[in-house]
């Protein structure tokens, strides 16, 4: 560990980089689990195979992060039962239990992916070097997932706009509330259970990041995804404004 830590400018940079990787790996494993669960909710064999494929894609992302974290000697903490990640997973499982394929897609492919794509992009650009390449390439793959799902959700909205928007609103408040609490300046529901030691938000400046821009960019991408799906801006702005901060 000592030899590896020397590659970092300071112990603070090492710690915050470790926490960023910990969150990314935990998030990918949550995504993998979600797609695996989703596969069980689908009857169509082709769609079932696609869900398994997506689960495998998230597994590969997690493995990619884990391999590079190992190479750097980072202090990685994977905790799928960490407070926020676990609550998001529970929300997903609730909808999966009802075989609500569309709700599962909204949670995994719009909400979680918007945050993943945006935060990977910001983190990659801030960390630089090989980390940048890794984070940005995974963000790019996640973006493809998101774009594909957005098309599917556009079709769903087109079938019955009022019902779809009402359903989306309910999912938004169930899930985005958790992501919003998680990404607030201070964790609104306590320690996440993934970061080593104190909350990494207090140390992000060591890698030229700050929680306001991470959160702002993530919510901006989420808002743009809602726009692309076709949810009226005057509705989505109210949904976003009502999130905890």
């Amino acid at each position: 560990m000592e030899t590896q830590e020397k590659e970092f400018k300071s112990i603070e940079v090492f710690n915050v980089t470790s926490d960023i990787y910990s969150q990314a790996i935990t998030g990918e494993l949550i995504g993998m689990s979600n797609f695996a669960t989703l596969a069980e909710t689908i009857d169509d064999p082709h769609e079932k195979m696609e869900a398994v494929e997506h689960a495998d894609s998230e597994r590969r992302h997690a493995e990619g992060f884990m391999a590079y974290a190992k190479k750097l000697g980072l202090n990685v903490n994977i905790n799928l039962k960490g407070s926020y990640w676990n609550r998001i997973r529970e929300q997903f499982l609730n909808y999966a239990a009802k075989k609500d394929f569309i709700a599962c897609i909204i949670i995994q492919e719009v909400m979680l992916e918007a945050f993943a794509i945006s935060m990977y992009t910001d983190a990659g650009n801030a960390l630089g070097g090989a980390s940048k390449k890794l984070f940005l390439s995974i963000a790019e793959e996640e973006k493809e997932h998101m774009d594909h799902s957005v098309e599917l959700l556009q079709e769903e909205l087109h079938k019955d706009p009022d019902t779809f928007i009402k359903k989306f609103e309910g999912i938004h408040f169930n899930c985005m509330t958790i992501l919003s609490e998680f990404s607030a300046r201070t964790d609104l529901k306590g320690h996440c259970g993934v970061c080593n030691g104190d909350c990494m938000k207090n140390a992000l400046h060591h890698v030229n990041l700050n929680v306001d821009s991470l959160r702002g960019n993530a919510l901006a991408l989420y808002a743009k995804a809602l726009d692309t799906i076709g949810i009226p801006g005057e509705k989505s702005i109210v949904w976003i404004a009502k999130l905890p901060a």
Partner: protein
Amino acid sequence: MRTSELEELPISKIKAIYDYIPPRGIFKMHVKSLTGIETNGLYIDTFIAPDKLNAQNLRANIQKVKDAVKVVHHLNIKMAILGGFTSLLLEGNFNDFEDYDMVLTTGNSLTSAYVVKGLEKAAREHGISMSESNVLVIGATGDIGMACTNYLKGKVNRLLLCARNMNRLKTFGQRLLDEGHEVKYSSDLSELAPEADLIISVASSSEIAISSLKPKVIICDAGYPKNLEEKVEKVPGVFLFHGGMGQLKHGYSFNPDYTSQFYRYPAPHLGHGCIIEIILMAFEGIKENFSMGKGNITSEKIDLMYELSLKHGIELAPFYNSDGILEASKNNSTT
């Protein structure tokens, strides 16, 4: 926008997220004309934070305006007004939107109309002769400042022009002198203010301070934001009103209705001239860009827009400022 069951967010938390929000529709608007025509609109916010309106953020802000116009295009809306700072950022240049098949305007013709007509009305009510007055225009080289100056030239005793950019001011001032008008120009407001009988302020600078005023001077504050009261020397007899506004006699409605949260005025159904201009264009079915570029607003355009405004039952707003309706307008402020 947060409902009563939620705690109010402190400004610091709003600022932390505000300018990340992509441009989007905020509320729909329904308007009715005196002639019976009705039309619908959508208010799109660019989410440019006021404290980010500086040179450092110019490129990002221009991109946000372009993104907002793209939203209009995606929603298949065929007419748009780029109000407030958005047209200032683009300097009225709509070239980037030529492929969008939409009609655009800065709305500055009607804003200018409400400014000059408001000033004329205030002067009349206070027994001041326009032709014997010296009119000071603060922000004279901006689009509205130039439009008002061009409208008033030949109708007043002397034009006093003030702007920050001395080169532009000199060019504009000299042109008016060459046309034979009585003009004095300076970038130093204190050189001009003591001579003014009537003042139009269309500048957005926070650095304006007006002092050494004549008694009973009339001031039309048509800048953004309208906060000139804080910057004018407290002299008894000064009549300061917020200009560039109209009153829609047949009302308007918002959906969702945010009128209790913002767009609050001391009289009902007030609206900015720029927004009313696009409403009139919709009522009239005008299919070409109207106010565009900088320095292109003619007196004919001002008069045309004002006539259309009256035709559709939209009149000058009653005189008001941050203290409320001003005495002279109290009897006419309700619809």
